[in-house]
């Protein structure tokens, strides 16, 4: 069974702030995943710059696969230190997991991680050592198939201060909340992260007293998605394409009104066209038995492209109900994406004098594929 390491995070800025002082970097390279979390001192832009600086330095060094000790001393030597308080301007936690499921976690000044194993949350076994006058915690263990690991910034362990509690949740309180949430729904990490953010926000009385971030990680099975967009150049390929998509393994999307009509005709299925606009710019989606999503063509594809361009690995995709948001979510939830692209020119679009970059399907799909490869998805395109 093919497994893939999946990770999601959410960062919530302190109440009243525009940006979050925590920063997360996720890098996937050579079947390794690197996750870096940094929390800048204070809040707002200053904290954001500090944490971005710290996490970028760390992830850059980690990506180059230098010896860990060297990386640590470089980071510790370059981390700016507050002159007044004598503490570092930013905290840092990072982990590396390789294809053998071996996980190495390093924490500097940040709360200990939460490991969900055998239905309960436990603390990791840490080895502590000192480097450049700083206490560093290291954990090294085998990450199991059903394990889930959560990293948080101190805004989470302090949740409740200035809100419902006098002294905040603390590590044990957070552990209890994680345990309760994950037990109920072990499969859906995204949902759990959203739920936990809601819980912590509630402890704060919906006005976070500090920036907070939670990252969740686990293994899951690989997922596939197939997309058919556009009628083929040769009309006799209609039936071939319809057969290909209907027999494909994984989720299925048809993108384009004409394409949907061809599929309905070839597969002898009923096409129900929707009439609800969730977003004024994106035409409604349709329904057909056996397919997960049927959307309009060009406008939806363009929106999908712009949503993908903004996406940062590990983020939880936007929750919109319109065709483009649902399309984007299906793409992001999958690990391999297969496009079946028809290259026939749609006569009806020629009359519109669309700008050239909006009008050419093959170009937009190539750009979407490029964006998907950027976030390490496997992409296949077949042209017809």
């Amino acid at each position, binding site marked *: 069974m093919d497994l893939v390491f999946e990770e999601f995070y959410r960062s919530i800025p302190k109440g009243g702030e525009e940006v979050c002082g925590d920063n997360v970097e996720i890098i996937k390279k050579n079947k390794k995943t690197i996750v870096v979390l940094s929390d800048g001192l204070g809040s707002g832009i200053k904290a954001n710059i500090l944490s971005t600086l710290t996490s970028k330095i760390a992830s850059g060094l980690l990506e180059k696969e230098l010896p860990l000790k060297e990386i640590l001393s470089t980071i510790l030597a370059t981390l700016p230190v507050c002159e007044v308080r004598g503490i570092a301007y930013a905290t840092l936690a990072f982990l590396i997991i390789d294809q053998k499921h071996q996980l190495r976690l390093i924490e500097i000044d940040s709360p200990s991680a939460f490991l969900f194993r055998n239905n309960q949350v436990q603390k990791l076994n840490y080895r502590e050592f000192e480097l450049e006058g700083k206490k560093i915690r290291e954990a090294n263990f085998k990450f199991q198939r059903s394990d889930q690991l959560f990293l948080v910034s101190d805004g989470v362990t302090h949740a409740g201060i200035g809100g419902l509690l006098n002294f905040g949740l603390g590590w044990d309180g957070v552990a209890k909340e994680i345990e309760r949430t994950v037990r109920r729904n072990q499969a859906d990490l995204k949902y759990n992260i959203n739920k936990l953010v809601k819980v912590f926000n509630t402890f704060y009385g919906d006005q976070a007293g500090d920036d907070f971030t939670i990252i969740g990680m686990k293994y899951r099975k690989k997922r596939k998605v197939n997309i058919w967009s556009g009628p083929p150049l040769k009309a006799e390929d209609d039936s071939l394409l319809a057969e290909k998509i209907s027999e494909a393994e994984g989720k299925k999307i048809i993108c384009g009104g004409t394409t949907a009509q061809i599929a309905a005709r070839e597969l002898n299925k009923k096409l129900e066209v*929707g*009439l609800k606009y969730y977003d004024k710019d994106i*035409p*409604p989606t349709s329904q057909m038995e056996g397919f997960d999503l049927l959307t309009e063509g060009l*406008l939806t594809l363009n929106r999908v492209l712009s949503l993908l361009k903004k996406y940062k690995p590990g983020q939880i995709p936007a929750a919109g109900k319109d065709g483009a948001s649902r399309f984007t979510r299906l793409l992001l939830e999958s690990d391999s994406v297969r496009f079946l692209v028809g290259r026939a020119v*749609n006569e009806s679009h020629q009359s519109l004098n669309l700008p050239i970059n909006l009008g050419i399907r093959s170009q937009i799909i190539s750009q979407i594929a490029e964006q998907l490869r950027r976030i390490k998805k496997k992409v296949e395109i077949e042209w017809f």
Partner: protein
Amino acid sequence: MSKNTLKICIGTPCHLMGAADLLESVENLNHKLREKIELKTSHCIDNCCEKAPVAEFNGKVYQDLNPEKLDKIIRENIR
């Protein structure tokens, strides 16, 4: 009472030329009129995309519409 059928095209050209406004205008019709109409959407009506937006009311195709024209068509042709 025979039901009236209104089909509005939501293909890309019709959408760009204001199909959403047509749909909205139908939803905003007065209640008595609205309940006599069965509203449907379609990916293409009659391949006349250069005269978008297009709608079909009781079997007849109308082109180059806007909410006012559609309103007039409905009031004149309702059964």
